[in-house]
């Protein structure tokens, strides 16, 4: 079997300073249309509740007020940054920030945002599925953490809808539900690696996001929401036209063909490494937001990116960072 070489780039190139990612390693990139995903393997931190099976939205107490519950018997839940819930015939909501929820604990998010301008009704626990806000909205949503006002993201959602060629309304459902068949294909077009705990995402060659989960199960439960919605929307907007007829390699036998393929792949890996190196850098600022035992949840702000991270001492347990 021909093995594809792994890019040797350290994550520290992109993220100097606060992120202790020494144990994390980049795998072989995968591509689907405009979306490139570089899998990240790394240590599995025990004791965290996975977000889909463990964390439930229990009620919406009023527009902009969302209660989550960690139903797991043990394990702290890190609420995924910018998670949102969709349910038929109810107002869809998303959160602007992450948080810790101890086992059995419920927490009311007073600063949630409604992402559906005109649909009445409140979400309840039945038949809900979750997403992560599209990358295009994440910087703004993060800025609005702590701000009360259910309609605070409507203008940005309306802008994004307009850029998608949809009606200019504060209705994220126009993208998430109506474009769901094409968006959900990203969870098959890109494939989760065994043991994967995170990923770097590039859209059309530009760094778009970095996601790190505490363990492979947590990341697997986030996979759909991340590839289809957080990064899939931008990738869908940039989907290239189908390629023309394939150009043959210069090769006169099978060994030559294997060599040509390997060289071509090495060049494309170098290109992805180049994208990473080309991502802008700058000093990052950390602001602590929440703590649970030895865990710290902080907001990271830099000229080129923003997001939230969870650290345990000098080790990064969770990160959700996106280009600004």
């Amino acid at each position, binding site marked *: 079997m021909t093995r594809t070489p792994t890019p040797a780039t350290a994550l520290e190139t992109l993220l100097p300073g606060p992120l202790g990612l020494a144990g994390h390693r980049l795998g072989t990139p*995968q591509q689907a249309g405009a979306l490139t995903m570089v899998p990240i393997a790394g240590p599995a931190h025990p004791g965290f509740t996975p977000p889909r099976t463990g964390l439930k939205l229990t009620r919406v107490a009023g527009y902009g007020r969302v209660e989550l519950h960690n139903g797991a018997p043990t394990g702290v839940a890190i609420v995924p940054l910018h998670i949102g819930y969709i349910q038929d015939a109810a107002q869809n909501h998303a959160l602007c920030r992450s948080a810790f929820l101890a086992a059995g604990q419920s927490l009311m998010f007073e600063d949630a945002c409604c992402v559906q301008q005109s649909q009445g009704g409140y979400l309840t626990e039945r038949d809900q599925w979750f997403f992560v806000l599209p990358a295009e909205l994440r910087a703004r949503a993060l800025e609005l953490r702590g701000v009360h006002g259910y309609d605070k993201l409507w203008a940005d959602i309306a802008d994004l809808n307009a850029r998608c060629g949809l009606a200019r309304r504060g209705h994220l459902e126009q993208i998430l539900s109506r474009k769901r068949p094409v968006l959900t294909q990203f969870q*098959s077009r890109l*494939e989760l690696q065994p043991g994967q705990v995170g990923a770097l995402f590039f859209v059309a060659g530009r760094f778009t996001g970095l996601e790190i989960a505490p363990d492979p199960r947590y990341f697997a439960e986030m996979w759909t929401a991340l590839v289809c919605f957080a990064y899939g929307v931008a990738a869908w907007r940039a989907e290239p036209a189908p390629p023309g007829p*394939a150009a043959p390699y210069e090769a006169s036998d099978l060994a030559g063909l294997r060599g040509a393929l390997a060289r071509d792949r090495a060049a494309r890996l170098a290109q992805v490494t180049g994208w990473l190196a080309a991502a802008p850098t700058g000093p990052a600022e950390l602001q602590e937001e929440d703590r649970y035992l030895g865990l710290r949840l902080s907001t990271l702000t830099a000229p080129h990116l923003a997001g939230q991270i969870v650290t345990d001492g000098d080790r990064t347990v969770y990160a959700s960072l996106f280009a600004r």
Partner: protein
Amino acid sequence: MDDTPTFLAHLETHDTALTLPRGGDLTWDDADLHRAAHTRDPEGYALLGLAPGVLARQRARVLLQILAASQAGLDEPTRAVLARVARILTLALPPAHVITVLLALRRLRANHKHTTRTALRFVLEHPHADALIAARRPALRDCFEHALGTAAARGCARRIDGGDTGSDYLRRRLLRFLTDPHAAPARVQALYAAGHPAGHTAGQAAGRDGAAAPVPAEPALAVDDARHRPPTVTATNRGDIAATLVHLYRGGPAADLHAALGRHLGAAVAAFPRFEGTVALVLDASASMRGYGEREWAVLSQAAALRMLLARVCARLDVIEVGGGERDPGGATDLATGVLDALGAPGHAPDLVAVVSDGYENLFPGDLARVVATLPRAGVTTPVVFCHAMFTGSDDLRLRRPDPALPQRGFWHQDDFADLLPWMFGHCAAGAPWLRAALHARLDDLDRRAAALAA
């Protein structure tokens, strides 16, 4: 048989009508293609008309071609096969198609002994002959008169009208072509019952009493098995083998399920002749093949069923798994390396490389297409085909065609293997005898069913 896959694909896709406007010329847009295929290999050509999935309009062309062409120079076994195929097609096509073919033969002034026999048996011995004559009397009378020659046809009709049922004249001119001479006289009478034999009513549908009667639309014999498609496709209603595998993958009782698997596989294998060659299967066992939610295991189980079937049908099957393994699917999809590995060492190339995948190529997209495009200049002549593993027949494949230039065919149900295997094997030289054997077996089976119709 180098052109077999192309020609078979044509028979399965080229769906224009064969038309015969009154007073105009026969419209047969792909006549050259049919003539050339028939000339190359008359028996193989005729048998291909029976291949699963061939369009009715193409089967009508095959019937027309074999009836229009002379059999001079063909040996007796070949003539016998052509006659049997022609007979089956007259029963397996909607009767209106057959009537068009017979009228076209008249227009082409094609008349051979084998043409006469087939035409007479259709007009006088079709299981729905009485209804057909009632509905299309003038047209069928034209066919009858063309088959026998107008003078002989009318001579027979006059004698039958006078009470003759077995004179030497009748036997020599008419009855010797038939298998059931007893039914013929009444039907010949019916052909001429509505008026003068030279009446100018060809093409009109008039019943015995002058009222229009509908032409029976359904063929008397079904060549392709009717597919029972469930209204809602699930992971376990896609055929017995895949359903059993899904339960095994989900952790069902292994002993019972393995026993059932053996039975289902045995039954499926029995439908195919043995392929005396080597197939290299590039099996996509990546994460997307496993699927998720209610569809989990659906696509992979059918791909695994195909693998098991091929393992029993082929003299040798080499499997190159891509991503994870069949029981532990996962990871990315590198189809290009899979194909290179499948081609093996120089001098040990398989007869056929078949890629079985859902089409989500991500490591890297486009590589399969570039590798396949390079194969000819790398001296590789092994055919490569792409078997598209789908959840249902209506999957959206727009983002799932890693190499649009590869011959490709989808499958999602076990029933699809009946079409898929002939299509796959048809692409390689070693598949020619397999295809012929498979189609001969099909012809034998159809003959038995046709005989049961007449009984």
